């Protein structure tokens, strides 16, 4: 492996890291603003013009708070809980193709940290590790509410991972590849998967809301019943990491939705451009899609009340999984028919 490649990937990783954190930070600001607008309020507007420095003020506040560890908690697990949550939320972005190849300094660079040929499986692996952060955090707190939050998070994750996986199989069937780059390149121009698989998208969208613990599926941190759920005992930047990882996860799952169903960095009329300009426009289009999904997820949060737990399980097992399975079977039959297997 040559040194230039290592430097190139390193720079890309650092940029991605900063972008993920920056977008997560400003998601918190935007979430508060959006909540305020929906409720006919103004929202944070004291720190800087339009409150634009609010995330920085929040971050400083988090760092300056007392870092409290409950007496009977498992200290080691208590510390790594938020770490795992943040880590898993961040590493998913490694396989996301942010744009087509660019040419810089006479080198062709890929705007993707690594092109796994089993990218979709990698996502599932990472997402299912993600619940360990919440589980370990909730368990190590030695608090009933935290434990309940952790149990809810894990059962919710198990229930919705199934439907999510099955809904993704349709995309894999249509693309014939598990690599995200291939999936994106199959959806050239306006030929997006959403036109073929709207039901699959709906299932995937609902499941990703549940996987990222966003409303209306935010039962693990249900403050009215569980006083914050798994992060009840957390304070200072550990709490900050938990809250932050939710926003990073939201950013990454928005990126995944854009890739899998809305053509990733493809946009209509992209054939008119080429080279670095095309790459730039592609990245812009991709981020526009991501921001749109982040907006929709927040919009849903401030519209719909939280599910009850039995409703959550009913929706997951009795509604989404059958729909996803039937959708998968129909897709499989149509593809088999087109391939002339009958």
């Amino acid at each position: 492996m040559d040194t230039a490649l290592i430097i190139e990937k390193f720079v890309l990783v650092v940029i991605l890291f900063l972008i993920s954190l920056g977008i997560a930070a400003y998601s918190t600001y935007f979430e508060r603003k959006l909540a305020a607008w929906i409720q006919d309020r103004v929202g944070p507007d004291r720190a800087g013009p339009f409150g634009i420095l609010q995330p920085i003020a929040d971050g400083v506040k988090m760092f300056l708070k007392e870092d409290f560890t409950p007496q009977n908690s498992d200290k080691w697990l208590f510390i790594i809980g938020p770490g795992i949550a943040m880590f898993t939320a961040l590493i998913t972005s490694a396989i996301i193709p942010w744009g087509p190849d660019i040419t810089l300094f006479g080198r062709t660079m890929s705007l993707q940290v690594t092109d796994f040929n089993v990218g979709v499986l990698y996502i599932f692996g990472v997402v299912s590790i993600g619940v360990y952060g919440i589980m370990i955090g909730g368990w190590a707190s030695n608090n009933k509410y935290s434990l309940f939050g952790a149990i809810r998070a894990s059962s919710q994750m198990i229930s919705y991972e199934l439907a999510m996986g099955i809904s993704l199989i349709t995309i894999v069937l249509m693309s014939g590849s598990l690599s995200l780059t291939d999936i994106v390149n199959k959806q050239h121009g306006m030929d997006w998967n959403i036109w073929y698989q709207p039901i699959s998208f709906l299932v995937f969208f609902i499941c990703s809301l549940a996987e990222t613990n966003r409303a209306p599926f935010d039962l693990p941190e249900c403050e009215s019943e569980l006083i914050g759920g798994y992060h009840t005992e957390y304070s200072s930047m550990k709490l900050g990491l938990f809250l932050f990882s939710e926003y990073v996860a939201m950013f990454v799952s928005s990126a995944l939705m854009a890739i899998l169903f809305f053509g990733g960095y493809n946009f209509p009329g992209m054939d008119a451009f080429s080279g670095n300009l095309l790459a730039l426009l592609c990245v812009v289009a991709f981020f526009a899609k991501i921001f749109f999904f982040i907006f929709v997820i927040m919009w849903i949060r401030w519209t719909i009340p939280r599910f009850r737990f039995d409703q959550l399980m009913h929706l997951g097992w009795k509604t989404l999984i059958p729909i996803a399975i039937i959708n998968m079977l129909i897709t499989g039959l149509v593809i088999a028919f087109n391939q002339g297997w009958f």
Partner: protein
Amino acid sequence: MESLSNRKKVVSDKPMTFVESLYLPAIFSGMMVTLKHMFKRRKTIKYPEEQRVFAPVYRGMHVLKRDEQGRENCTACGLCAVACPAEAITMVAAEREKGEENLYREEKYAEIYEINMLRCIFCGLCEEACPKEAIFLTDRIVPTEYERNEFIYGKDMLVEKLDKRIDITKRQDTGKRGAV
């Protein structure tokens, strides 16, 4: 029974139709409601920069008026304390000595006059009861304090300063002594 208001809704628990049981139409209509609210005008008044305009009859912090020659109107008759439904007013009367004619209008005056602003409900009955046009409610706000004791306003807070007369005409124009 016949509905008089025209707003009566019959409540029923009939089973949901298939479309209703999908929940999605209801969710979308809910999201449209919130979307509409995103573009509505904000009703917030950003307080330190902007201040709400008071109604002309607003009843705020009290003032004990002086007359044109700077003498206190109050004679400590106690009618305001009797009228006060919240029992916020208390006073101690004293007789005017020789040489104090420039300070107090009548022979009797209030040596101590206290209003507990935490008890006061700003009803304005003291103002109505006052036969000497001495106490008035103004358009000023009672400021916040850290201690409960600091809300008991004595004469130092209530009587208007000679060099800083309080204009009460904004709230009411009695056409008599009260308006300076």
